[in-house]
């Protein structure tokens, strides 16, 4: 951390005398659970409980009218799930969510990696660049979406005015069903790349210069060094970045809520958006089922990424 306090010690060595002293360990156990109590209580009531309740609700026909009697509802098995999978709109929002991940994750990662690699090669102005590229991450997605909605206006928007000035076509970014989703992805990548840039930069700084120097002495080009040394050594960091970015894009919602209201023709509606809509309609059971399918996707995708990218070497 900041300046003075980081004096990492070999913690294990000092631990030894405490061993065997039984009353001491008992005291520590009591203290530890007391210290854990507030977190645990909040966690059980507001996270673990709802995660299980959500699963339970997804097998019932609970509606808004049951809100005061949530336990007196009908058990309907997997009806909510079969209804969802048969619903063309839900299929569409699943495909859209998949597109957000498939387009958004590589784009965000590629941009963040390119910036991190360049940042790692400069010594001057590094702090300025880092702050600038990170800036959108700390800002509200809602506010940023409002701003981008105006930037992307077909007429009078800054983006199309700039394109028009150099004689390029000026599409209706958010009103064209084929362009709306990609437009949102690009905006989201712009907003999210800062987090990955910081993580990748930290990863790059762990690669010793000597290794790269040695390769260059052996006649490797800059690209070869990047491809054969930097990328493989960065793999754990890239994997971690892919996982957290995927989880983020799977939950895509606010950008579409503000910029396109899920349109045009549901082209930007996501699973989270669908879940929120069903909740707003009062279909709590159906909303819970939709959210659980998304949760399943988060778990499976995370597992797959570790499986595919984590084991090759």
């Amino acid at each position, binding site marked *: 951390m900041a300046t003075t*306090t980081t004096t990492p010690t070999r913690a294990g060595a000092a631990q030894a005398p405490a061993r065997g002293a039984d009353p001491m360990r008992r005291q520590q156990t009591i*203290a530890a659970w007391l210290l854990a109590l507030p977190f645990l209580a909040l966690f059980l009531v507001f996270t673990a409980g709802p995660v299980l309740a959500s699963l339970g609700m997804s097998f019932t026909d609970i509606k808004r009218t049951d809100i*005061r009697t949530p336990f007196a509802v009908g058990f309907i098995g997997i009806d909510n799930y079969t209804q969802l999978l048969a619903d063309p709109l839900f299929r569409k929002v699943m495909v859209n969510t998949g597109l957000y991940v498939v387009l958004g994750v590589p784009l965000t990662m590629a941009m963040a990696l390119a910036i991190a690699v360049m940042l790692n090669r400069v010594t001057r*102005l590094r702090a300025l660049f880092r702050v600038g590229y990170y*800036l959108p991450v700390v800002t509200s997605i809602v506010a940023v979406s*409002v701003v981008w909605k105006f930037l992307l206006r077909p007429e*009078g928007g800054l983006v199309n005015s700039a394109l028009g000035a150099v004689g390029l076509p000026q599409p209706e970014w958010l009103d064209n069903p084929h362009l709306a989703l990609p437009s949102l992805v690009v905006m989201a990548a712009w907003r999210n790349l800062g987090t990955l840039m910081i993580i990748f930069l930290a*990863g790059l700084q762990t690669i010793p210069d000597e290794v790269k120097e040695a390769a260059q002495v052996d006649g490797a080009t800059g690209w070869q060094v990047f491809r054969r040394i930097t990328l493989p050594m960065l793999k754990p960091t890239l994997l971690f970045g892919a996982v957290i970015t995927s989880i983020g894009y799977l939950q895509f919602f606010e950008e579409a809520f503000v910029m396109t209201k899920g349109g045009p023709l549901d082209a930007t509606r996501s699973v989270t958006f669908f879940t*929120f809509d069903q909740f707003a309609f009062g279909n709590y059971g159906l909303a819970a089922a939709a959210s659980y399918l998304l949760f399943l996707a988060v778990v499976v995708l995370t597992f797959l990424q570790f499986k595919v990218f984590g084991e090759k070497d």
Partner: protein
Amino acid sequence: MTTSAATPTPAPAQTPLDDLPASTGPSKQSKRPDQGGPGTYIALGLGLILMVIPFLWMAISSIKPEAEIRSIPPTWWPQSVTLDNFRELFTRLDFTTYFLNSVLVATAVTVGNMLFCSMLGYALAKLEFRGKKLLFALVLGTLMIPGVVTFVPLFVLTVNLGLANTLTGMALPFLAGPFGVFLMRQFILSLPDELIQAARVDGAGELRIFFSVVMPLCWPALATLGILTFLTSWNNFLWPLVVATNEDKYTLPVALALYAVGQNATQYGLLLAGSVVVVIPVIAVFLFLQRHIMQGISMTGIK
């Protein structure tokens, strides 16, 4: 850092992100093999402009009259300057209330996280007890749970607790998060054990050691956690949107989003001024305290 080697997070947390070239280690005397030339600076500079332009345009446009914002082609610098948009936000619309709601909720969430997360973070970092591994696994597992999975039953619970449409109901579920526990654990691991041992030898109780020996040393990490939590809460959208059924309980993002998709959707000046109110305090805090924020990210590898 013996125990932290077992951390399942592959993020390279141990590297301090430092601007000083000295941090590049012993090889810095020799010329770095991959030193960037002017091209690198130009590319980074152009990218930087793309990152910042939307914010500049937002701020500049918010002080233009409505007609000028709509003009085609758009103007960059305002031809006439007005504060009407902001005046309308705080008089005709109730942005004062939304601002206060945002501040109250974010403050409560921040204080809760700073206290509760450091308590558990300390236990996980420095105390020996049964169930420790399980507890830590629980914390890390929670990091992955999307908010969308819990909000429906959470709303049912909130209604039955009588907390629907209250700021308490908005803050309560977020008072202690896994990210804070993880960050505080990582930091406290780096504190020397000798301090705690010495306090034990002096006869201090375990809880006292935490509150009067460890907590005071945690300020750098607490500051980072406090800033990150405040920002996250300030920008939080889905849960406040669900809980606030009445306008007087809107937070800033909820109000802005609902105006942007509702009847004010065509009042560009108003919406841009609203965005300024949401974004500018955050940018100001970030620019002042960015060092803490960056360290938090690099320490845990997550935001």
